[in-house]
């Protein structure tokens, strides 16, 4: 659907290249929904965008408190952007707690829209405001707009017969309406959305639509706002676009992998933040021959997926870091069994329960080494929400082709963040042949079936599923004789098998890494993996815009690494590895390539900021870091 600007004649219209808006309020204020809707409108309008939801681990902390603040940040632009933005240009604060928790991020001169109704003495005290900041000078440096959103909403809904409480709850739609007016967003989508969401309560649907329109009208009719802004659509590559979150893209990738492999999909999973939505999404798509099983725990989740793989399905399990820890023994079994299995880890802040709703990249080494014995597993990582789709397909290609469990490392910011996604043409997705064994294969012509006889090329073993006559066999976690697969305690055989398993993974064909080095002669290479793609790219753009040279490269494949990586690293004087952990990839690179790669880390539960990386790169370029 192509949309055009629906804005009517209004105050001065200022053209902007990009805008960052942050909606902040109480957990009960519906800020995530508001943000989502604004995002959808923005996507439909054709801007490029990137989002960052941020909410507490509690379902709903006590109203009006600092721990209860929930926010949603959206960055949109008329060119392709890479991050959800460092700092908001506009902050919408629905209560004193939201103001207090977010105001420090608003740069001087920024627009602050405040819902004054909540600025009561009691609410102010609750968060430690001695005086009302709207009444002293503390907000002087901002463009403050005070709007009694609750009052105005209730007023607009007075006729609906809705209870006061229900009416008041629609104030987030009022805010959305106001902002939609300010930024010339289309509104049909939101109205349609509200009608569907409240299909069973048409009164609520109408109320929310009324509130939304009231907000819009408030902007139009009051003279409080001197300007509105326009951000033109972004000239993205031609194609059909939609907005997508990482978790949805992962779920779609799994559904698609079922189609490209022709296998039934079986997901065994136990809910955990921020991975649960993949289970939720997949449970809707049974028509694609996708079965979801909510297991009693993570071990059962992966165990059932492995059992399904043994039976010839595409076994998948989804979790976050603590769940991977629990699954580690079974991952080891999958390594020994050499069966396809996709294990998705949506990383979150750790250690232990950590920060369940925040992002982090600290499970890389767990993915690589978190099992007893030598148990190598391929590891892939998506770099953006939409890229989760491709990463899932790539992980499945490796799992099926090489008969191996594969770990896919997403993270909280990819999972919940969203961006416009160029929808792939489903007919062009590359098929993957599961290539089931159908015949006995013993090289000695005995007519036996040897479950561990390997393909010369891939070193993969045959996948012979129960029900296939003549291929009956037994496999297990004890060491197996090379070829025959029967139990073997022979020392030389064990050494051989350990090396064969390693060689199989090391020999997986992965594409070369591509370097973005516009000038071709940068001294500094910045290399990352996973969700830091956006901030690293944005940081690099900024320093390039300042006239400096910097090369960037991003790893999709953490294990095995691309064949050309050593050569690439060797080409640069300085190699810098920014990570949201204490330096995990950098350790692997140093060990493997013996390059003096430098680590930059930040473990705040939030993505890097473009500015932070710009400064970092500049400091490296200027030689502060020799």
């Amino acid at each position, binding site marked *: 659907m*192509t949309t055009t600007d629906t804005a009517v004649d209004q105050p001065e219209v200022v053209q902007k290249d990009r805008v960052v808006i942050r909606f902040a309020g109480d957990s009960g204020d519906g800020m995530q929904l508001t943000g989502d809707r604004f995002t959808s409108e923005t996507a439909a309008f*054709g801007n490029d965008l990137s989002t960052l939801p941020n909410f507490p681990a509690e379902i709903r902390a006590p109203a009006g408190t600092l721990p209860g603040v929930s926010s949603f940040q959206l960055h949109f632009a008329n060119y392709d952007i890479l991050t959800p933005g460092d700092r908001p240009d506009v902050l919408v604060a629905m209560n004193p707690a939201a103001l207090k928790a977010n105001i420090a991020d608003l740069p001087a001169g920024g627009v602050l829209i405040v819902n004054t109704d909540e600025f009561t003495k009691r609410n102010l005290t609750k968060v430690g405001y001695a005086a009302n900041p709207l009444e002293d000078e503390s907000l002087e440096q901002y463009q403050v707009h005070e709007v009694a959103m609750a009052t105005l909403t209730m007023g607009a809904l007075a006729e609906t017969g809705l209870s006061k409480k229900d009416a008041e709850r629609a104030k987030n739609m009022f805010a959305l309406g106001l902002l939609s007016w300010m930024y010339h967003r289309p509104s049909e989508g939101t109205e349609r959305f509200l009608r569907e969401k409240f299909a069973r309560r048409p009164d609520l649907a109408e109320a929310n639509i009324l509130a939304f329109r009231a907000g819009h009208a408030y902007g139009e009719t009051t003279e409080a706002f001197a300007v509105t802004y326009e951000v033109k659509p972004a000239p993205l590559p*031609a194609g059909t676009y939609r907005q997508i979150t990482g978790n949805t893209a992962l779920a779609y990738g799994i559904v698609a992998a079922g189609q490209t492999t022709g296998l039934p999909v079986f997901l065994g999973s136990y809910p955990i933040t921020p991975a649960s939505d993949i289970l939720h999404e997949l449970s809707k798509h049974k*028509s694609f021959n996708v079965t979801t*099983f909510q297991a009693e725990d993570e071990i059962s989740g992966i165990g*059932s*997926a492995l059992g399904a793989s043994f039976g010839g399905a595409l076994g998948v399990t989804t979790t976050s870091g603590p769940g991977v820890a629990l699954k580690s023994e079974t991952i080891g079994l999958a390594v020994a069994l050499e069966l396809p299995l996709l294990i998705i880890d949506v990383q979150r802040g750790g250690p232990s329960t950590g920060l369940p709703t925040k992002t982090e990249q600290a499970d890389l080494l767990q993915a690589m080494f978190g099992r007893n014995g030598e148990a190598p597993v391929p590891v892939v990582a998506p770099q953006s929400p939409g890229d989760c789709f491709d990463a899932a397909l790539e992980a499945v290609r490796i799992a099926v082709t090489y008969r191996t469990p594969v770990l896919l490392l997403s993270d909280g910011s990819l999972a919940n963040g969203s961006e416009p996604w160029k929808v792939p043409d489903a007919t062009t997705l590359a098929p993957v042949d599961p290539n089931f064994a159908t015949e006995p294969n013993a090289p000695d012509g005995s007519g036996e079936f040897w479950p561990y006889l390997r393909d010369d090329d891939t070193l993969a073993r045959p996948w012979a599923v129960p029900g296939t*006559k003549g291929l009956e066999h*037994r496999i*297990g976690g004890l060491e197996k004789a090379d070829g025959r697969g029967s139990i073997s305690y022979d020392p030389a055989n064990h050494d051989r098998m350990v090396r064969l398993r390693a060689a199989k993974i090391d020999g997986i064909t992965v594409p070369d890494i591509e370097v973005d080095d516009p000038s071709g002669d940068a001294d500094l290479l910045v290399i990352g993996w996973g969700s830091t793609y956006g901030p690293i790219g944005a940081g690099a753009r900024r320093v390039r815009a300042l006239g400096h040279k910097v090369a960037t490269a991003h790893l999709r494949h953490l294990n095995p690494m691309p064949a050309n990586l050593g050569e690439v690293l060797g080409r640069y004087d300085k190699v810098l590895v920014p990570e949201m952990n204490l330096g995990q990839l950098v350790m692997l690179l140093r060990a493997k390539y013996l390059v003096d790669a430098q680590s930059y880390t930040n473990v705040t539960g939030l993505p890097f900021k473009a500015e932070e990386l710009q400064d970092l790169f500049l400091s490296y370029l200027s030689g502060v870091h020799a």
Partner: protein
Amino acid sequence: MTALDLGLPTIGGLDGVPTTTDKQTAKDFTSDQEVRWCPGCGDYAVLAAVRQFLPTLGIRRENTVFVSGIGCSSRFPYYLNTYGMHSIHGRAPTIATGLAVTRPDLSVWVVTGDGDALSIGGNHLIHALRRNVNLKILLFNNRIYGLTKGQYSPTSEEGKITKSTPFGSIDHPFNPISLALGAEATFVGRALDSDRKGLTAVLGAAAAHRGSALVEIFQDCPIFNDGSFDVLRKGDDADTRVIDVRHGEPIRFGTEGAYAVVRDGFGLRVAKTDEVDEADIVVHDQADLNLAFALSRLSDQDLTHTVTGIFRDVARTTYDDATRAQVNHERETRTPDLQALLNGRDTWAVVG
């Protein structure tokens, strides 16, 4: 969207599994792997019984799968020429669940030990039972950890001296039958390793049952718990200890049915048959959960009175049938359109 009503299973445990009319023998079900148990181990008897029993099912060998955990007993799958997986400690029910859900054409068996099933694997066991996945679970109960060389298990008697309890175990044991009944099991049976006939009967009923079937097999470990069930096999009063129950029949046992089981409050007690009224003798009803529970508590686990046979066998929709029904219903009523899925509801075109 509303739940599909599947109703009660009207099909048997093996329906959907391809059959064969080829004559199959125990030998066909024997793999080429050397059996590696200690001489005299009760596992041999069970293996022999199973090898003889499987061909009688008339299903194809290649559609039979045995999944096990870790322990002496869990080596079982290696010795059968079917498909098999010797997995990790305690997790066989999870693997078997994934397999059974995705493959209705397979007969899926789990082999496990008292440590494997009830210690590390207890949770998976009770969840498999409550879900009623179409799995047959053979629990080899030797009341000891065999493979790790003789520590007490969750079914060992209190006071037992083992490698890890030199002063005697102080753990109150599980009663596997009571536990299974409390966990909503639809089929619970018990047999002695040495009782080929009784064991085969229970296995047959388990195979025919659609849903999870737990079969506890008392198994001797001559190395670490020698003769633990001998009182049920030999000695003067052996036949007054074993109470074999049969659905619809009054519960009598001992030589010439000299003893009977009668009601005692909400529970049961053993009486001399000639000292009670015929009418007071309890008639076994495998659909009566409270009776089954009471039977499991007839005496302490000291084997004074040990019920064998089928405690409970009732029909309840199985998890795997229900899951497949949901999937199949969707597959039949909606044509999967990947492009439509990927597009979602809101797309926009960029013309470049």
